[in-house]
């Protein structure tokens, strides 16, 4: 390595020192120049070595999927296993303790199937009436009470169950804002406040409804035409709402004042969306299920909704093998970071972990 001792060492041998004064002066100048040139070369080499080391380190981190790089993690989850048994599953949610996984099936018996962490079916939920009169779509669990909310497309209502799976009642939006709502996506904030996407009527009436303690919404999000078949949604700790504005092909980010703070748009570039359906937030990451891309896209979020989420990567490809999706739809993440994704046409729920 280059150091000061090396640079002060004699460069020429003693025989060259017997020349005349002019020659000596000239020789001294040449020696100084040579020393400078050598010094520059050594600096260049050192810089190149340092650069190569940095590049090698970056490549190693990228390939190994290791811990976070300064600023942002590039790590993506890997496929772990699948839960089978639900027919054309659409929605999924996890109880606060992570021990009950709720899965809605849009085919078959139109049940909500409940699994334990090992994938064993432990219960089924259904409202009164036959299978032909219900079509469960999305499911969410109140983090405060443990109550389970299931949107029913055919019933145009939400069916409410307690934490043990007992049917309690219909949750029917009321009042000037809620009457006639056709619930689809469901999400809770950490205080147990319910957010619901409403697809009643035509496009101009699609919106997000926010509830307090009762069945009458306390406010709505979205001016006429703002959303087009909004599906899944998620709420962060600041009260920002991430909505899969599905038919518009975008992920809309709404601040607590109901204003559009940002979005991820439809397109074909990395991180662009096609048909977003399921949405989940966990830690500093946003997950969006892109149904027609057969993948889950992962973004970094900073907590400041004015900053567009940074695309990290995606997991899952189209297919029927383990880790491949055929029209994935819903997503839920438990407290340990286990990711559940409904894989509709493969009739299973996939589990991905870090």
């Amino acid at each position, binding site marked *: 390595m280059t150091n000061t001792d090396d640079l002060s060492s004699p460069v020429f041998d003693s025989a060259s020192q017997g020349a005349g004064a002019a020659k000596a002066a000239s020789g001294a100048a040449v020696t100084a120049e040579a020393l400078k040139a050598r010094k520059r070369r050594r600096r260049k080499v050192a810089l190149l070595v340092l650069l190569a080391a940095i590049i090698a380190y970056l490549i190693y981190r990228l390939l190994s999927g290791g811990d976070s790089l300064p600023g942002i993690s590039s790590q993506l989850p890997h496929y772990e296993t699948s839960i089978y048994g639900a027919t054309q599953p*659409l929605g999924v949610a996890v109880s606060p303790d992570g021990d009950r996984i709720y899965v809605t099936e*849009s085919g078959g018996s139109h049940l909500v199937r409940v699994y334990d962490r090992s994938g064993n079916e432990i219960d089924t939920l259904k409202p009164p009436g036959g299978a032909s009169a219900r079509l469960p779509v999305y499911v969410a669990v109140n983090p405060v009470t443990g109550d389970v909310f299931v949107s029913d*497309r*055919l019933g145009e209502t939400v069916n409410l169950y307690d934490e043990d799976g007992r049917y309690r009642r219909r949750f029917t939006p009321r009042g000037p804002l809620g009457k006639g709502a056709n619930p689809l996506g469901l999400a809770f904030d950490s205080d147990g406040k319910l957010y619901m996407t409403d697809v009643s*009527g*035509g496009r101009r009436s699609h919106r997000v409804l926010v509830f307090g303690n009762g069945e009458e919404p306390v406010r709505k999000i979205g001016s006429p035409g703002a959303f087009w078949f909004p599906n899944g949604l998620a709420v962060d700790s600041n009260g920002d709402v991430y909505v899969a504005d*599905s038919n518009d092909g975008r992920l809309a980010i709404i601040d607590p004042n109901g204003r559009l703070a940002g979005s991820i748009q439809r397109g074909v570039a990395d991180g662009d969306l096609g048909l977003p359906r399921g949405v989940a937030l966990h830690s500093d990451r946003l997950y969006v299920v892109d149904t*027609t891309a057969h993948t889950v896209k992962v973004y970094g979020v900073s907590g400041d909704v004015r900053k567009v989420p940074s695309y990290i990567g995606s997991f899952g490809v189209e297919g029927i093998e383990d880790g491949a999706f055929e029209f994935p739809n819903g997503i839920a993440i438990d407290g340990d970071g286990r990711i559940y994704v409904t894989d509709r046409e493969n009739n299973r729920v996939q589990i991905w972990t870090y």
Partner: protein
Amino acid sequence: MAQARLTLLGLACAASLFLGTAASRADNGPHVAGAGIVTDTCASCHRMHTAQAPKLLRESQNALCYTCHGSSATGANTDVEDGIGYSGEGRKGGKAGALRGGGFEYALIDSGAASGQQSEPPNPGGSVPVLAGTAAATSSHSVDFSEQTAWGNGPISETANYGKSIQLRCGSCHDPHGNGNYRTLRAIPQESGAGGGVTILDATKYVYTTENYWQVEDANAPGFIANISAWCATCHTRYLSSTSFTDSGDAVFTKRHRTDQASQGSANCIQCHVSHGSNANAEQTSSGGVHSLEGVPAASGSYLLRIDNRGVCQMCHK
């Protein structure tokens, strides 16, 4: 300078023409209408270089269609798999209803109750009521791209010819990009081999659901009832007939029930059949497993009929 201004004016006019050609709404499909075409609209269904299906589609056609129009209808108000219509532009709110065309997997036809009304005239007293919940389809125009026979396809034939084998997809009959036709029906269905098409002008209001399957006329689309039999006959060519008294000259479809009448309650295709799928039963001795055509293996199912067994006959021929 003046020439440059003129050029700019011309370019502005040309641009305004393009901006003004946003496609119309509703039956022309959300893929090209609604909020209008934006620069990324195409990419929702197509891929230029990495398509996985014909027509540069990113997925197989039906899987794409069912993603919005399938069970639970998470992207549309029409669930053609279950035969359910949800509240939307075409309805005045309220509860989900039965799709007029039935459904490919399930339907809401209360064919049993309809069978009990055979003593009633079909119009206006008779009705094919709607079920509260879905029942499995017993017959459908399978759109799973499986081989099936387009019964009666082709011209009159002196030798037995039942029709050619075809493979149907949603896009065989519907144009996803919209074409101004009723329900985006193709004037000439794909694989029909028809020489000319049938145009049914689009409705001004859209009524997708019914409370009575027998009421087939669409008051918002007066051309529908007048032209629908001719449209069906672009594939089922030899089923179209104006009389049952004369021989057609065809070895198979020799004498045929009249199917060309153009009014509610009269003899036309849609008066007895639904287009997507029916849940009617056809299990009685003379109807179940009946040979549809001489020499052809018995087919199970209800032949897209609106009423159990052959109740559609008795609705008129009491």
